[in-house]
């Protein structure tokens, strides 16, 4: 094998999807021992490029060299054999298997009767060498998100991968966990591995990157070495224009209490306690941001308020009315808007058109009724008006909405929820997966609602978003509120500590 400077080289790689050129003649070279950050906005082609390198997609054009030899990676197996492994954003683990079983999953060199003890020793050795603390005998469902990520990394190290790709690895981690991950990654790089981190967070680049490649609309617009760039340079390269880091929000005009939770308990999907005694209030004209690491009760919180999940104990009040366990329909009728986490899986009906999607919540109302029939003309007229007012870009009102882009889907969803004039909006990860433009739109709409006197419960895993929009911040940890702070009295570092379960005594405000 010819030794070259690079472990892996991608040359002039292009990949086209219907209607988009996801990668346009991208060059990327990875050195052993470096942490290489792939920076770009959502939809800039970072994940596509790495999926090509991991053998999931095949490039339409371009060449890939591993150790100086040209290769064709037709499947993740090919990639792993070439020493390239990827940790995806959504982990691919079997919950009921142990860590060791997950690590060897798919390894063809395992004998029919695997030697458990030896495999577990091997894994324990790997995890010690790289500082990836996790017990090989524990079942995956018992692990935290951070630990699951370590299992995914171990899986790749176990197969002898020399190039490790991580797709937005910190999205699901607390600041502390992220720091630990970065230490692990540095350890790997020091041992000669090449680590690729996909991200759109600037401070991460500043923290860990040895080199950074910036992607914009499918093109690699820059490749810079550590020390040659500032955060502002990168932001400019990434977006192609100057970024306003701080959005001014008008002062809050806090009104009456709209939503009140009193000592609410609920179960999670797995029958374990999801919420343990949550009490909080949201006032009219106020945004209450709920911070926390995903999986600490955010989903359960959103679902009990919107009536989707039964409350086991405690009560929920909306403008003085008890809405505990009254069912989704009644909650909708009480004027609660809901922007769910899963746009296409819950908030919208992917196979139906825009008109049908816009009446999802009020097709039962008298104004759309004509006996047993739906008033098609009225719903169509109203859909036209909404689409225009909320700037949803589409070509056909009847075409299935699954064809719309993420930003347009979210605008459509907001169009429906906002124009129902809700007294409360529950928004869960409202900008996840959206580009900068759509994100600004969504944030602007939420702030407009706040000015109009709507109470907003904003659940997000992005601290920047929470700080940008919220008037007060509640921190969820293991199903309980561990802190309720005014945004002016705190900072991300403090919130980060609370997210990890550390409970400071002072500073609680009503």
């Amino acid at each position, binding site marked *: 094998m010819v030794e070259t400077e690079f472990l892996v080289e991608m040359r002039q790689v*292009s*990949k*086209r*999807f*219907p*209607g988009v*050129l996801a990668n*346009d*003649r991208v060059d990327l070279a990875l050195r052993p021992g470096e942490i290489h950050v792939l920076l770009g906005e959502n939809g800039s082609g970072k994940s596509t490029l790495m999926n090509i390198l991991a053998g999931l997609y095949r490039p*339409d*054009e371009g*060449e890939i060299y*591993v150790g100086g*030899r*040209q*290769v*064709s990676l037709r499947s993740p197996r090919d990639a792993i*054999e*070439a020493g390239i492994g990827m940790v995806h954003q959504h982990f691919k683990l079997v919950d009921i298997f142990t860590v060791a079983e997950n690590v060897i999953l798919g390894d063809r060199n395992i004998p029919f009767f695997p030697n458990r003890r030896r495999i577990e020793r091997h894994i324990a050795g790997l995890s010690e060498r790289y500082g990836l603390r996790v017990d090989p005998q524990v079942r995956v469902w018992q692990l935290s998100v951070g630990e699951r990520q370590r299992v995914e990394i171990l899986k790749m190290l176990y197969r002898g991968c020399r190039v490790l790709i991580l797709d937005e690895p910190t999205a699901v981690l607390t600041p502390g966990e992220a720091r630990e991950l970065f230490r692990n990654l540095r350890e790997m790089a020091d041992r000669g591995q090449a680590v690729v981190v996909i991200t759109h967070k600037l401070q991460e680049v500043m923290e860990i990157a040895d080199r950074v490649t910036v992607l914009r609309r499918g093109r690699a617009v820059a490749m810079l070495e550590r020390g040659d760039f500032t955060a502002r340079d990168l932001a400019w390269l990434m977006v192609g224009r100057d970024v306003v880091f701080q959005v001014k929000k008008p002062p809050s005009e806090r009104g009456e209490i709209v939503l009140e939770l009193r000592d609410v308990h609920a179960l999670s999907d797995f029958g374990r306690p999801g919420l343990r005694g949550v009490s909080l209030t949201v006032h009219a004209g106020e945004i209450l941001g709920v911070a926390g690491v995903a999986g600490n009760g955010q989903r359960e919180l959103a679902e009990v308020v919107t*009536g*989707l999940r039964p409350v086991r104990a405690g009560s929920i009040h909306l403008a003085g009315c008890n809405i505990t366990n009254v*069912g*989704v*329909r*009644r*909650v*909708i009728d009480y004027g609660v808007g*809901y922007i*769910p986490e*899963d746009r*296409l*899986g*819950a*908030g*919208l*009906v*992917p*196979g*139906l058109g825009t008109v*049908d999607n816009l*009446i*999802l*919540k009020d*097709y*039962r109302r008298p104004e759309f*009724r004509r006996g*047993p*029939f*739906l008033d*098609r003309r009225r719903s169509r007229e109203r859909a036209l008006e909404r689409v225009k007012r909320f700037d949803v870009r589409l070509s056909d009102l009847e*075409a299935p909405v699954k*064809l719309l882009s993420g930003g347009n889907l979210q605008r459509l969803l907001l169009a429906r929820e906002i124009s129902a004039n809700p007294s409360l909006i529950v928004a869960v990860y409202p900008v996840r997966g959206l580009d900068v433009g759509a994100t600004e739109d969504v944030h602007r709409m939420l702030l407009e609602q706040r000015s109009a006197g709507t109470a907003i419960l904003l659940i997000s895993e992005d601290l920047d978003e929470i700080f940008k929009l919220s008037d007060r911040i509640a921190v969820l940890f293991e199903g309980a509120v561990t802190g309720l702070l005014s945004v002016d009295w705190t900072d991300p570092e403090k919130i980060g500590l609370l997210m990890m379960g550390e409970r400071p005594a002072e500073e609680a405000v009503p």
Partner: protein
Amino acid sequence: MSGLRPVAFPWRLERSLVPSPAMSVLVPVCSVVLALLAGAVFLAFTGRDPWFLYGEMFSGVFGTRYGLFETVVKAIPLMIAGLGVGLAFRMRLWNIGGEGQLYMGACAATWVALTFPDQPAWFLLPGMFAAAAVGGGVWGLLPAIPRAYLGVNEIITTLMLNYVAILWVDYLVYGPWRDPAGFNFPLTARFSPEAILPTLGDSRIHAGLLVGLTLALILYVVLYRTRWGYEIRVVGDSPGAARYAGINIGRNILLVMLASGVICGLAGMVEVSGLAHRLQPGFSPGYGYTAIIIAWLARLNPLTVILVAFLFGGLQVGGYIVQTNGVPATMVAMLQGLVLFFVLAGEVLLKYRFRRVRDPRAEVKKRDR
């Protein structure tokens, strides 16, 4: 690594977002043609001349009054049962029990006909329709209850209930309902003339055709114009969204399976009242199963079901015709299977498209301009 070079295969299969209208017509038609071609290969292997047999089938079905009329006769139960199971499929309820619901409908209608032989037609026929609706409806509702409340898989339960229904009818016609004057044949007595659906002239085409066409129209309107149809479409497309919108999914499961069973029950009723004029074992050669294929071929659109039912009626009749040439009747079942097979394969062409890859850069320039 084995030093594999990139393959220079210039065609790519990629997702196509919107199926082109031409393709949505072309694909089913080509599927049928390809199925016939594949069937021809089988026939050739059995030492017969496929083109001669297809010619016989075609001229037998379309070239004669008998063939055309029989096609309509066969299409009636297929159409009605196809509408019935198709309604359930809309909500992703896999009702494989159309056959059983059809038998129970026929059974209940027969009970009315045999119990009140002396009543006038204005009482008997509506009574038989109502009974068939109850019989089929109950048979559809039974598996829906455990499905709605416990999540019990309806594929298994509906399928099992078919055997119960078929054996129940067997029991009746071999036992208590056997015609004493029937020379020991397993048949019920012939219905009184008042219990028989009117026919078109002296042909075998009966009023069941009107039932089928009306049902198709009603179902179309219900699905696309009413609030209930809207709920069905929402639940069928995304149960998550239905829950989010506060639609009662359990109630809709019960209602849709009930309606699906009622419609399949009516198919049984028109078959005994319009054609057989009595209940006999095996009066349905698997209409309830063929209906599944029909519903899918029609893409669950009630109006398209009419067309596809006629196509399958013709296929069935064609099979009977070539039997006189010593071809086993099961050949038709084989052809039906092949049609479904090719249509499902053709779906890929609707969801994906082949694209020739030359130079991705050139295409970008074209777009940017």
